[in-house]
């Protein structure tokens, strides 16, 4: 039995569905991410879990209790907001203590627990400062501390890293993960950044246009995407239209009528230094040197295709306009029947 389950949750705004029949089962202690482009309904889904939006239909069951109609303050769920939503008129301590004061804890207990959590997020020395004087990263940590100190049953994070610069984002990402491991708290993390979702999560749900497209571990999602959308969003895959039929070993042979789509990851396309005679060739259109790897955009007949390879003597030699042989590793590709790509 899952700790948090969402059953066919639908939310309509003015007759338009922002979330359509979303069902998720999240076991206790899991780090679960909801991933999708902006406007896909992921934040609405999170706000329904938090209790800020009432579902149009469906139910939310938390630890065996149906909490669908419970007010947010009665759910015992912690949340870190995208803009942190720190109370600007309070100090760091007062912000973090707010939830404990609501629970009418003793002054001594509040002081101890606030101190402990501020230690954990390395903000011990900033206790008495006004939150408005803190840097973005520090504010983010206060927000996490404030949500965690009340020991909520579930922690919700709404794109908590999006207001940080890149270096800080990587560091904070690790901190969130280790804090979650230490506390073992069930966490739902909303993001539009696939690398964040992949690196942090036990499991991921990918959402598109209000629907959950696929749920699975990062590896499952990456290796066997359930839809072209998931393949593109998680792996940056090329969606190739293939006429006729191809064999994708080992198990499937897909016979394409007129609309077979194959998701091919950039790293499954190799540019060949010594192509077999008579093998396929392509023209390099763009080249992007990233250090360890190099990205190419190549033209294969009329398709523009992304390819990635580990940088080498050979890759450094290549330049836009060159014609070069290539090979596709179909074994790690996924084929989908008909429809538009």
């Amino acid at each position, binding site marked *: 039995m899952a700790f948090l389950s969402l059953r066919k949750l639908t939310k309509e705004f003015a007759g338009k569905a922002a979330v359509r029949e979303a069902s998720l089962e999240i076991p206790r202690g899991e780090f679960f991410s909801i991933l999708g482009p902006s406007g896909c309904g992921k934040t609405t889904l999170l706000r329904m879990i*938090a*209790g*800020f939006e009432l579902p149009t239909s469906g139910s939310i069951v938390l630890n065996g209790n149906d909490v669908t109609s419970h*007010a*947010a*303050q*009665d*759910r*015992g*769920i*912690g*949340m870190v*907001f*995208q*803009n942190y*939503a*720190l*109370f*600007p*008129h309070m100090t760091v301590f007062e912000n973090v203590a*707010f*939830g404990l004061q*609501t*629970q009418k804890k003793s002054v001594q207990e509040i002081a101890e627990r606030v101190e402990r959590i501020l230690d954990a997020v390395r903000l011990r020395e900033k206790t008495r400062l006004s939150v408005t004087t803190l840097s973005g990263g520090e504010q983010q940590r206060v927000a996490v501390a*404030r*949500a965690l100190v*009340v020991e*909520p049953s579930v922690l*919700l994070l709404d794109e908590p890293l999006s207001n940080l610069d890149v270096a800080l984002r990587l560091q904070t990402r690790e901190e969130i993960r280790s804090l979650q491991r230490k506390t073992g708290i069930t966490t739902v993390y909303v993001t539009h950044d696939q690398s964040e979702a992949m690196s942090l999560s036990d499991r991921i749900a990918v959402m598109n246009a209000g629907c959950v497209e696929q749920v699975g571990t990062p590896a499952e999602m990456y290796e066997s995407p359930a839809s072209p959308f998931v393949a593109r969003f998680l792996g940056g895959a090329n969606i190739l239209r293939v006429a006729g039929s191809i064999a994708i070993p080992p198990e499937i042979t897909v016979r394409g009528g007129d609309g077979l789509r194959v998701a091919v990851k950039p790293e499954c396309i190799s540019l060949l230094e010594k192509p077999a005679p008579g093998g396929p060739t392509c023209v390099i259109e763009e080249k992007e040197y990233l250090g360890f790897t190099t990205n190419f955009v190549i033209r294969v007949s009329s398709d523009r295709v992304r390819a990635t390879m580990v940088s080498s003597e050979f890759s450094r030699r290549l330049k836009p306009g060159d014609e070069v042989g290539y090979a596709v590793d179909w074994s790690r590709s996924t084929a989908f029947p008909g429809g538009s790509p």
Partner: protein
Amino acid sequence: MRIGRRGIILPGILLAVFFAGYVLYPFLQTALASVHVDGRLSLGHYRELFDPGNSANLEAVANSVMVSILSVVASAVAGVFLAFVVTQFNFTGRRTLSRLAVMPIALPPLVGVIAFLFVFGESGILPRLFQILLGLERPPLFLEGIPAIVVIHAYSFHIYFYLLVSEALRRMDGSLLEAAEILGSRPWRTFRRIVLPHLRPALVGGSVLAFMASMASFSAPYLFAGGRRFITLQIFTTKLNGELDLAAAQSVMLLAVSLGFFVIFNVLGRDAGGRGGSKGVSRPKALRLPRVVRRICIMLAVVLVAIEMLPMLVIVLVSFAQEGSWTSQLFPSAYTIENYRALVSDPDVLSPFGNSLLMGVLTVCAALVIGVSGAYVLEKGGLRRGKLFVDTLLTSPYAIPGTVVAVGLILSFNRPSLLSGNAVLVGTFWILPLAYLIRTYPLVVRSTAAALAQIDDSLLEAGQSLGAGAWRRFRRIILPLLIPGILSGCLLAMIAAVGEFVSSILLYAYSSRPISVEILAQLRTFNFGAASASCVLLLLMILGIVALTNVVAGRSAPRDLFLSN
């Protein structure tokens, strides 16, 4: 923020009753009275107003409109110039200058006018100085009539432009100017094409406030008009002659002109341009101007602010003048603290201060309830399309001239009714704070609504997710964030109430006379010293209130939040 519909009902009802009973009802009474002659329905009064044979009223309206337009122009020039110098140039004393420049906002209109009389009037200090220096029979130049009124208006109302424009300039994204510069634009072109469009909402807002205030102005025409007619004065004399119905018709006329402009400007000003949307730290940046130009501008600004200070200094000086010691000399010839001793020792002289203070406190208490309810309904009542309408309606009394408010109240409460607690209010103490309340509660609505709009919904959601119920969220999150806004609104209401003159002069009874009426009485008996001492005490009282508010709010000098909409 999600509040149940129930949370809106109580403030909504309170607001509706107040607005219907004390704003709409007096207005309807005024409109009704204006179409009655001797108890019968008739358009006689309007025929009289527009009678080509007797053009007194039309002339008065024309004078009022003309003076108002001139006042707007003069206020804009002074206010925008000061705002530019203070925000764009860096020089020692800039902060002091910017603080001093807003001082006149705390000056009750009547006090300002009297101070001007002492400095620039026919027997004022400056004209006499020139007379003596040039060895002339008469002062060569002094302020009287329309120029005097326009200058006084500019003195009081340039603050509107100053505050709005300096705020807009401070918010302006410096990178816009840099972008213009890198595209080869010269300062004047940058000013015209970039800065001016950015300032448009501020200029429109300043214009409407200055125009309305000039139309409604009573003190300046009252003391400086000479023989000229002004619509507020017409209403006053008509009422004194006992022709209430005709005064009502004149009030409707004044109101129609004023509200017409108010609505037009409000609609014009709403489509304010976008705010600077650049990410990261926006660096304020000044127009690059030649050094000489900058120097001259700063000097001019200092002179301007000094002239602003002069009347206040002179009134302090005159407050120490011995009675009858200031007739034809440059300065009063003998000084004494007798004026102040009289203030403190003579209960008859001191009682107006008690009256004004008490009425001010009553006004603020009521304005607090009405104003906060209004802001709450406005911001959190789930209004969408109707919001602009309700907003305009709720804050419209700010645009009703004090004279018109007074006439409406006289017509409404000269007989017992449910709204007056079954008593005749006219001639009693209570009608004064009621008039002040009607004129000042929009200030509290504005400032509270502005503060309320700043409270991000996610703050309340954060509170909710931490287990705080509705009451706790209100007490711990909303209220602390709201208090500075509420306080600054209340402060402005208090300042306006303790110095109020325009409605008071039509409504007071001897026992309930406020300070302003007492000051005027002293002036009338040429008791300049005593009048000035009263003015100084009133100013001290206001400064005390400002200081007290600052202590409570823990903030720096209050700004007129009515303006920073």
